[in-house]
């Protein structure tokens, strides 16, 4: 717990930045796949 509190800023920064990037990329991939499926039908 003490380690978490002491390093919260660094851990939070890295985790929130990388997860946001990952979510954005997944969202773009999801939308592209959906559009491709719609155009094939």
């Amino acid at each position: 717990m003490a380690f978490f509190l002491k390093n919260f800023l660094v851990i939070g920064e890295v985790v929130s930045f990388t997860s946001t990037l990952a979510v954005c990329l997944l969202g773009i991939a999801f939308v592209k796949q959906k559009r491709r499926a719609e155009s094939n039908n």
Partner: protein
Amino acid sequence: MNSKVTKRVLIWLFFGMILTAVPITAAAVMSLPKNAGIVDFFELVFNQDLLAVAFTLSAAASADVIFSREGKDGGLLKVGMGSFTMVLAFVSAIGYAIIKSGDERFDPFQTACAVAVFYGTSMACSLVCEALAEL
């Protein structure tokens, strides 16, 4: 782009993001010491108060998208994005509590960088949530 989406995003950007940042920026400008540099200004603007704003705005945006009744498609995308934004909102809330309590002594520049990342990521996801809420 859909005009309804553009309208909602622009309204949110002005009334949600810009107006809430005005008092914090004004307070930073007023308390800026003489001969202060850009780093001092950065440290004053990106303080814990901005995390309270980020928490409120992103929690509201995630509720908007999760309970959105618009459209029939993209339900999973909406709920997923809303839940992720809610998680980011809670990270901002925890950051606010830790910084505000003052139990841990953080470097001011490191704190400002962390606040900038928390604020930036929550605002970016909230913007996407607001756009998705109209789709």
